[in-house]
């Protein structure tokens, strides 16, 4: 109950303070070269699998952001983002699923200039990234030594996002947006052991990730743009 009350209080206070509250949903594409290599090696080394394991590349993202109140063109805010990727095969006697989760906590530098580029906005997002890869075999978590096979990771990400505000009603806006991002380093020492079941054979214990994203954002804004 306390947690619920705290949540309501937090949301209310932030709504009062916020220039803008956002929530969005998007499609996310990633290119993580080391994880690719681990999956490619997994597929190469297992000719006995009729269906190959797809690379981790297409995912769904949801995020919430607060942009703090400011009269300047340059504002700042915070962002919490979750992304889910799945790679699944269904071979005889062995369906193998890799579930990849990302949780990003980011700081937003938000820019909009209503005089020059009315409705357009740009965000620079610097995030701390945590990742988790899990494996399911035959619809059950893959375990060995009575422990679930898992690979956690941690790193940093830099993204640039651009969108355009469309006013729906009063303070309510919708904006299509695009985002490109780069995670130069995510330390995930167990990922090869989880994916290819080896350590040090395929790749290092880290990867870089290139991301692109396209989606729609729902905004509640204190200040009208048109």
């Amino acid at each position: 109950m306390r947690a619920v009350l705290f949540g309501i209080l937090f949301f209310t206070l932030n709504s009062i303070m916020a220039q803008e509250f956002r929530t969005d949903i998007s499609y996310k594409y990633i290119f993580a070269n080391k994880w690719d290599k681990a999956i490619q090696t997994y597929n190469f080394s297992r000719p006995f699998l009729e269906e190959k394991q797809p690379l981790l590349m297409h995912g769904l993202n949801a995020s919430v952001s607060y942009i703090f109140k400011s009269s300047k063109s340059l504002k700042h805010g915070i962002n919490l983002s979750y992304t889910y990727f799945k790679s699944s095969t269904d071979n005889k006697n062995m369906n193998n699923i890799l579930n990849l989760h990302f949780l990003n906590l980011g700081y937003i530098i938000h820019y909009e200039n209503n005089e020059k580029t009315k409705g357009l906005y740009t965000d620079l997002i610097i995030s701390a990234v945590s990742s988790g890869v899990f494996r399911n075999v035959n619809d059950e978590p893959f375990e060995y030594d009575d422990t679930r096979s898992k690979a956690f990771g941690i790193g940093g990400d830099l993204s640039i996002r651009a969108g355009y505000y469309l006013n729906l009603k009063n303070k309510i806006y919708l904006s299509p947006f695009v985002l490109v991002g780069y995670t130069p380093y995510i330390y995930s020492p167990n990922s090869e052991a989880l994916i290819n079941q080896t350590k040090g054979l395929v790749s290092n214990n880290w990867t870089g990730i290139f991301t692109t994203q396209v989606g729609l954002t729902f905004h509640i804004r204190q200040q009208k743009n048109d």
Partner: protein
Amino acid sequence: MDRRHFIKQSTLLSIGGLLIPSTLLSACRKETLFEDINYDGKVIIIGAGAAGLFAAYTLKSKGIDFQILEASANYGGRLGKLTGFANFPIDTGAQWLHGKNSILGDLITKSNTKITLDDSETKYWFNNQLVNSLPQNTDIFEGDDLPDISYNDYALQKGLGNEYKYIVENIAGDQGAAATRLSVFGNNQDEENWNSGVDDFKFQETYFDLIDTQFASQVKNKILFNTIVTTIDYSQSTIQITDSKNNTYNADKVIITVPIPILKSADIQFIPTLPNEKTTAFSKIGMDAGMKVFLKFSNKFFDQNIIGGPICAAYADDSIGKAQNDNVLLAFIMGVQAEYLTSLGSDTAITTAILQELDTMYNGQATASFVASHVQNWTTNPFVKGAYSYSTIDMGDARKVATKPINKKLYFAGEAMNTNGHHQTVHGAVETGYREVINILNDIKK
């Protein structure tokens, strides 16, 4: 341009600007390594053990021409199967699946192969009696800052006196080594790289059956048996291999999977000679004597595992995990104990020595109920000469040096060439088999 058009166009441009490169990038990203590679050269694999067979299986999947030259009359290397001795099939070589998190774990799931967790109980032969537990903790060989000294010396340093000699011999024997030769530091490093899991599993059939049915069966028609390679001449662009009958075989690439003692004892002559750093690296990789003796009895007087015998430091009930339960006890003998028993000169003498030890432990019941024995001495097999590789004192990065391909022509596989902590194991050998195919294809691509 009005606002509506601007929004529409900028939205479409943005989405297109992201999706088109993403789609193109997706199309470039292949699911498998070397998906489009086309190689018309020939690969010869020397040795039809797990590494050689899996390398062949991988080459076959890529449509690459290959041939396997095997010195003995059988395939499987240090995997073997004995039928007719008991009412269940017996593994004469590798027997336990060490951890499920491996390529062979996947193969077992895929092929629905029946395995059972080996959680059998252990008794210790300690101070001339069988006990359920030991007075002192013997789990001292893992941790930080361990010295590069032998298990034997480290045990003494840690206060495990002479009464623990054969307990320590068993711990080292698990790694295929004599306690005086296995490095505490080196083996601990190996353990740190290990990621397959610590549970051991037994096959209801045999380990050999898994290999045989799942991939050896697909490549065994390409094995030339009784072909003892004596020379590998890699001085020209085409590699020429000569066998003991003076037959020659030509190849563009050669994968050498023979056990490390064969490389150490220079049973194969290389032309030109291998670099010094290579031969030095071979010499640093340990491989001791090893044998398995199966003893069949008319009744089960023995415990599931008996650790610490002066003749044999590890006995195990061989029927565990099997569909039938004949009374078969496995004597798993490594290192100095295997050297001693080999020196007795005959299978009968080896069996007698083991029965005497068991009689001491079980008040004469062994000889009284003895039915038959089978001795599998891997040390006296001229194409193996030992059990499996281990990390010696002052070994450094010998395994990595030993593994390096030479001149994009010679590639080295087999359990001893596994550099990611999985040496000594069948799945480790399999990993080197496909690793060297990857190395070959990478060299071709370059």
